[in-house]
C-alpha cells in the first residue's frame, strides 16, 4: 500500500488518464497530421476518422472501464465476496438474453435513434435485476449469500437459454450473438458516448456519496447495523444503482469481462480498502485499463479487430491466478 493514496490518485492516476485520453486517439492504422486534426475540413477523411470514430471510441472505453471497475468495487463490498463482479447477479446474462432474443426474432426496429438490440439488452438487464431483487425480497432474507446464489442461478439459467436459442438459430445469427457476447467497443460513436455518460456520472455520484456506507457494509452486517446503518436498505439501493449503471454499459459495449474484478483488486492493493480512496482510484484505473486494452484490440491486427473482451480476458485469467497465489502465500 502506498503511503499517500491521495497522491497516487491525483498525481499519478489522474494525469495518466488525461494522457491516455489525449494520446490513444492518435494510435491506429491511419496517422493523421496534427494540422489536419486541429483545422478539420468537412471532407477530410483523416479528420473524420479521428473526430467521429477514434475520439468517441477512446471516450467510450474510458467511461465503460470506469463504470465496470466501479461496479466491481461496489459488488465486492456489498456482498463481501472478492469474486463478485458487476455481472455476478445476472445483469450481463439478462442483457445477453435480450440481445439473443432480438437477433433471433429479427427485431430490427430503432426507437429514438437507439437500436433494437440496445433496447433488448437494456430490457433484459433490467428484467434480470428485477428477478434477483424479487428473489431477495420474497425470501425475506436480503443477505449477501442469498442474493449471490440467486444471481448466479439466474445467470446460469440465462446462459442455457442463450445456448438453446443459438442452437435453434442459423449461423449468421449465432455469429452476431457471439460477437456481441465477447464485449466490443467498435460500435462507438458520439451518440453512444452520450448514451452511457448519464449512467456513469449518476453511478459515480451515488457511490461516491455513500463511501462510508460501503466501508461499513464491507465489514459485517451486525456491526454495520449497530453503528446505525440500515443494512438491507443500503444494500438494495447500491445494488439497484450499480446494476442500472452496468445495464447502461452492457447495452452499448456488450459484457466486457474481468475489468470489474481486476481493477478493484489492483487498486485495493495500492490505495487500501477505504472506499473514500478506492472509488476514485478504481474509476481512473478501470478507465485507463480498458482504454489501453481497446487500443491494443484495434491495433494488434491489421486484418480484423479483436473484440476487447478477449484482450481483457487474456490479461484477466493469469492475473486472477497471480492474485490467488499471492493470497495463498500471505496466508501461509
Amino acid at each position, binding site marked *: 500500500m502506498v503511503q499517500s493514496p491521495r497522491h497516487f490518485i491525483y498525481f499519478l492516476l489522474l494525469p495518466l488518464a488525461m494522457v491516455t485520453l489525449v494520446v490513444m486517439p492518435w494510435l491506429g492504422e491511419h496517422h493523421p497530421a496534427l494540422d489536419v486534426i486541429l483545422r478539420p475540413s468537412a471532407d477530410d477523411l483523416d479528420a473524420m476518422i479521428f473526430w467521429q470514430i477514434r475520439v468517441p471510441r477512446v471516450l467510450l472505453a474510458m467511461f465503460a472501464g470506469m463504470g465496470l471497475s466501479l461496479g466491481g468495487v461496489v459488488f465486492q463490498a456489498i456482498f463481501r465476496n472478492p469474486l463478485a463482479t458487476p455481472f455476478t447477479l445476472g445483469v450481463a446474462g439478462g442483457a445477453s438474453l435480450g440481445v439473443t432474443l432480438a437477433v433471433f426474432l429479427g427485431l430490427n426496429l430503432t426507437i429514438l435513434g437507439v437500436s433494437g438490440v440496445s433496447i433488448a439488452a437494456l430490457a433484459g438487464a433490467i428484467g434480470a435485476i428485477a428477478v434477483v431483487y424479487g428473489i431477495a425480497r420474497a425470501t425475506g432474507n436480503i443477505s449477501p449469500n442469498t442474493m449471490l446464489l440467486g444471481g448466479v442461478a439466474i445467470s446460469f439459467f440465462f446462459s442455457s437459454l442463450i445456448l438453446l436459442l443459438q442452437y435453434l438459430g442459423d449461423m449468421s445469427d449465432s455469429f452476431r450473438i457471439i460477437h456481441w457476447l465477447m464485449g466490443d467497443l467498435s460500435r462507438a460513436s458520439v451518440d453512444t458516448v452520450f448514451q452511457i455518460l448519464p449512467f456513469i456520472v449518476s453511478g459515480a455520484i451515488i457511490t461516491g*456519496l*455513500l463511501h*462510508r456506507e460501503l*466501508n*461499513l457494509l*464491507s*465489514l*459485517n452486517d*451486525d*456491526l454495520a*447495523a*449497530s*453503528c*446505525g*446503518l*440500515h443494512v438491507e436498505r443500503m444494500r438494495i439501493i447500491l445494488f439497484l444503482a450499480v446494476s442500472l449503471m452496468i445495464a447502461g454499459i452492457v447495452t452499448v459495449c456488450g459484457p466486457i469481462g474481468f475489468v470489474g474484478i481486476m481493477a478493484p483488486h489492483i487498486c*485495493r492493493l495500492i490505495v*487500501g*480498502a*477505504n472506499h473514500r480512496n478506492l472509488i476514485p482510484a478504481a474509476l481512473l484505473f478501470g478507465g485507463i485499463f480498458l482504454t489501453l486494452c481497446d487500443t491494443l484490440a484495434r491495433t494488434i491486427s491489421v486484418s480484423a479487430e479483436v473484440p476487447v473482451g478477449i484482450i481483457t480476458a487474456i490479461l484477466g485469467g493469469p492475473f486472477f491466478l497471480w492474485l490467488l497465489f499471492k493470497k495463498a502465500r500471505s496466508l501461509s
Partner: protein
Amino acid sequence: MNNPLDMAIETNALSLSIGQHRLLHDVTLHAKRGERIAIVGPNGAGKTTLLRCLLGFISSPSGAISLQGKRLADLKRQEIARLIGYVPQQLADDIPFTVIEFIVMSRYAHAQSGGIIHRDPEGERIAKQATERTGIQHLENQSMSTLSGGERQKVNIAAALAQQTPILVLDEPSSHLDPKQRESIQQLLGEVGRKSQTTILAVTHDLNWAAMDFDRIIGMSHGAIIADDTPSAMMTSENLHRIFDAHWSVQPHPESGHPIVLPAHHYARDL
C-alpha cells in the same frame, strides 16, 4: 416501581418464536442507568437473541423494549446507534482498515446529517480519546489484520466507546481469548464500567468474571429468565443447577470474598 427515567433498558414480556421454536419467553428485564449486568446461561438459552432484540436487529419480537425511556420500535436505526453500542464476540481477522479508520467508522450515527453529506468534525478526536482509554494508541495506524485476538477486541471496545452511547452490550467479549488476554479485556471493561455512567450488559460464559465485575447476574435457560440477583445472592449451587443443569460448588474467593464457581471433579462422583 422504578422511575422510568432512571431506566436504561426495559423489556416487558418479551417473547420471540421462529416456527415451533421458542427463542425468548416472557423476558422482563430492567437495567438502571450505570448498572453492570452479566447474562449467563447454557448455549441456546436465548442470551444472544435477547441482545439482538435490544440492538434492534430482530424487528418482530412481541412485548415492548425501551432504551433510555424511549420505545425501541419508534426509533430510527441511527437513533438506536446513538443509544446502544455493541461489542461482538469476534471480528473476522482480515479487516482491511487501520485501527483509527475502523474506530472513526463506528461514529457513523453521529454525522451532522445535512441530507446525504456526512460531517463528523469531532470524529477523529473522539476516536483518539477512545484509543487512549483502551491503551491502544500505539496501534492506531496499524492494519486491523496484523493484530492479535486480544488487541482486536480492544479495538472493538474502543470503537464502541467512540460511539458515545449510554448503553453498551457485549456478546461474549473474551470467550475466544487466552487467559492472559482475557484478563486484560476484563480489566479494561471493569475500568470502563467504573469510570463512566455507561450501562453495561454482557453475555458471558465466564461465571467467575460475572461474579467479580458486575452488579447483577441474570441467569437464562430455554429463552426465559430463571434467576436475577446480585452476584452473592444469585451464585448458589441451586441456581446454577436450575440454569445449567450441573452440579457445581460455589466458594468465596480467598482474597475478595466474591463467590467463585468450582466445577465438580469428573471422578469425584464415583468415589
